[in-house]
């Protein structure tokens, strides 16, 4: 399979950068995921082939890192931290609210394909707990109200 011209060019640079070809694995997986939306079996096989790795070796890496996804996510992937600092600042009711508001369980996608939900470990934003990450954007000191408003705003952005 082929990726976009821009991503192919980026992969070229990765492959030239590392003395060991396989070192390019994680960045390639991340960028491929951003472009395709998830690491489909097809993507995994393609990247394994390019790096002379077996599929199970690639899966080994993917299954270690929770930010590498082996199933599709929504357009907006909402990640709610429930680790200690956030938990002390009411992250659990926040997470419950996200489930109710979106009507899905963690790992599921809303019917319109817009949202998916994930409970995550520390996002490194303890000073502003509770923290939520939507795709690559951080949202600090979240409350159920702020989260609800965020979801509504994102829904309206729909083209």
């Amino acid at each position: 399979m082929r990726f976009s011209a821009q991503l192919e060019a980026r992969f070229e640079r990765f492959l030239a950068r590392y003395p060991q070809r396989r070192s390019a694995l994680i960045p390639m997986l991340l960028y491929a995921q951003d472009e395709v939306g998830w690491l489909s079996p097809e993507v995994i096989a393609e990247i394994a082939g390019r790096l002379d790795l077996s599929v199970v070796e690639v899966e080994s890496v993917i299954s270690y890192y929770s930010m590498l996804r082996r199933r599709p996510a929504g357009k907006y992937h909402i990640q709610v931290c429930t680790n200690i600092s956030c938990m002390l600042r009411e992250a659990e009711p926040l997470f419950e609210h996200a489930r109710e508001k979106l009507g899905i369980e963690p790992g599921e996608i809303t019917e319109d394909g817009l949202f998916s939900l994930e409970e995550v470990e520390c996002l490194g934003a303890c000073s502003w707990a509770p923290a939520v990450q939507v795709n690559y954007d951080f949202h600090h000191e979240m409350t159920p109200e702020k989260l609800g408003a965020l979801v509504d705003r994102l829904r309206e952005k729909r083209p």
Partner: protein
Amino acid sequence: MTAAPGTLLIEAARRAGIEIPAFCYYPGLSLQAACRMCLVEIEKAPKLQTACTVPVSEGMVVRTNTPKVHDARRSMLEFLLTNHPLDCPVCDKGGECELQDMVFRYGASFSRFREEKRHTDEEKWSPVVYYDGPRCILCYRCVRVCNEGMDVSALAIVNRGGRTLIGPNAGGHLDCEQCGMCIDICPVGALTSGSYRHQARPWELHYVPTICTHCGDGCKTTLSVRNNRVLRGNNRDQSGINGEFLCIKGRYAFDFLHHPERLTQPLVRQEGKLVPATWAQALRAVAARFRQLLEQGSAFGIIGSNHAGNETAYLLQKFARAGLRTNNIDHHRTADYAALIAALARSGVRPADRLAGSRDLLTARAVLLIGNNPTEQHPLLAWNMRTNVRLNKGRLYVVNHRAIKLERQATATLRIEEGRAGALLDFLAGQTTAGQPPALQPWNEFRDRLRAESDLLVVFGDEIKGDGIARLVAFGNTLGGVTRYIALGDYNNSRGASDMGLLPGSLPGYAPVEDAVVRARFEAEWNVTLPPGPGLALDEMIAAAGDGRLGALYVVGANPLKRYNLNAGSSFLVVQDMFLTETARQADVVLPAAAVYEVNGTVTNTCGELQRIRQALGTNGPRADLEIIGLIAKETGISLGPVGSEEVFDEIRRLVNGYNVAMAGLAAGEAVPTAPADGRDASLGRPDLVHSSGDTLFTSGTLGQYSDMLEAVRRH
């Protein structure tokens, strides 16, 4: 205490007799530091350190036997046992499990873990490998031996934390070389063997170390026997030339022994059909015909085995030459050993100094591999070549007409057209110039690289034979240092069959039959007059048998009619084998023979290393080849002297060039190099007959057809 710089603490301690326990540490594999069993106290270090990753240093003070260390070991074991099912009574590993042993020695007698253990169901990954996830302690040994040792990378760790598992490469299945290394290296019962699982407890088995009966590498396999059945093969004590290595054949392809089609009683042709007979009837039938033919002065033809031991090969040629008065004797030649020994001797070097052993491949600075595909045909030698590159920075040069897996380890690879090995050798030896077309530039570069090496070890397949070997040695002599050689032949005693003189032109030890001086020596020993001229080669014998020029053809442990056609009924055909092969089906008398695993004796691997084979099983019906040859001779009225394996071996030691080896090493189960002193006069007829069967990892000539496990893996 002192240790060389760079020595790991765990190794230094072991050498000093101090055991530091470890699961994940495995000599020869990359360091993992995953199991945390080897934690020790090092003075001035703030916390416990892993002895498997810390090298020794000057003035270092290490404590391995303190309450803190004991606590750490106890805690690690308690942690490993949280999810480990304590199903030792039904676990194959029970009794030889490293986790059991560690808990016994270092563990606590209680557990604080009261929660539910995480369970996953067992999985069948292939006919030979089964996986029981909950037993796994995540030492990564299997993953590393598959990646690093085998260069297969069929296993990987998937998931993380408490959900971590080992995963196979082909969606729940293993697509790999099926070597089973992962099973033997597993310290617990997470990976178990398809043939052995749930069969027996290790303490009720009888262990018989012998040599694998398949390829020419001569790996030691220790057969585990119970109730006269072999249940598994392995080399757990790492005592053979193969260390921990065995391929699928050494580990699993013993099952032909118990194949339902195994011949158990003699068959004699009556009214066109082979019907069961007693041994007495069958032997009488053979002897009566042999006597009659001898009296008539008819010619005999004899075809010997690549599998049976040296004693069988030696006695068979003695029977042929001294008893049946013929040099019509041959075998399926899979490497031109005679030509190699002759070429070395004729070039003025002592063959014994230039014939390399299998373990020399582990230390050679540079190896040149021409032809063959050792990954498939010589798995141990391939393992040694890989290991040499990986651990000793050895350089590997590969010449082949096709892509082979060992190119992945190669410093340089040269692809040539099939059949051009001879031209390449002349070029390498400098006898032709490249002629400068750009296509030959790779040849130039390759030659330059080889010329920069010294002490090259050349390994070659049947692509090089006859005169080609003389050209190869000529090239080797242009290089610096001591160039050494390994000729690759197919089966466990291909080399021995050749050394013992299963050749129409050679007495044992490559002495030409025309050489009256050598002949006189054997004549004095055997008290006969030997035929003075070379006999018929294998294909010539079959042709002669077909048109009635041979009175009888006697085939011992070979299946020539798989490849050649014989006009049935044209001469008396006696076949001695384990199965009703293509050849046996045409026989007049079929004699059921014991397998290599059912007899004592010796075999010589393709590198010329002599090793003992031991009887693991008794036979009920079949008899040892040696015994059958002796009985036929006796019934025919021919005296061969004592025909016990030890007596015959004594004669081999006395009479065969290179076989006068020290007995101590051999008796102790070591591989002893044979050392042919000369061989310049060797008879070199018919190199065209030299051809490899080109077996794969999952085939083994005729024998391989009768291994259900190999068949299952081929279909997997």
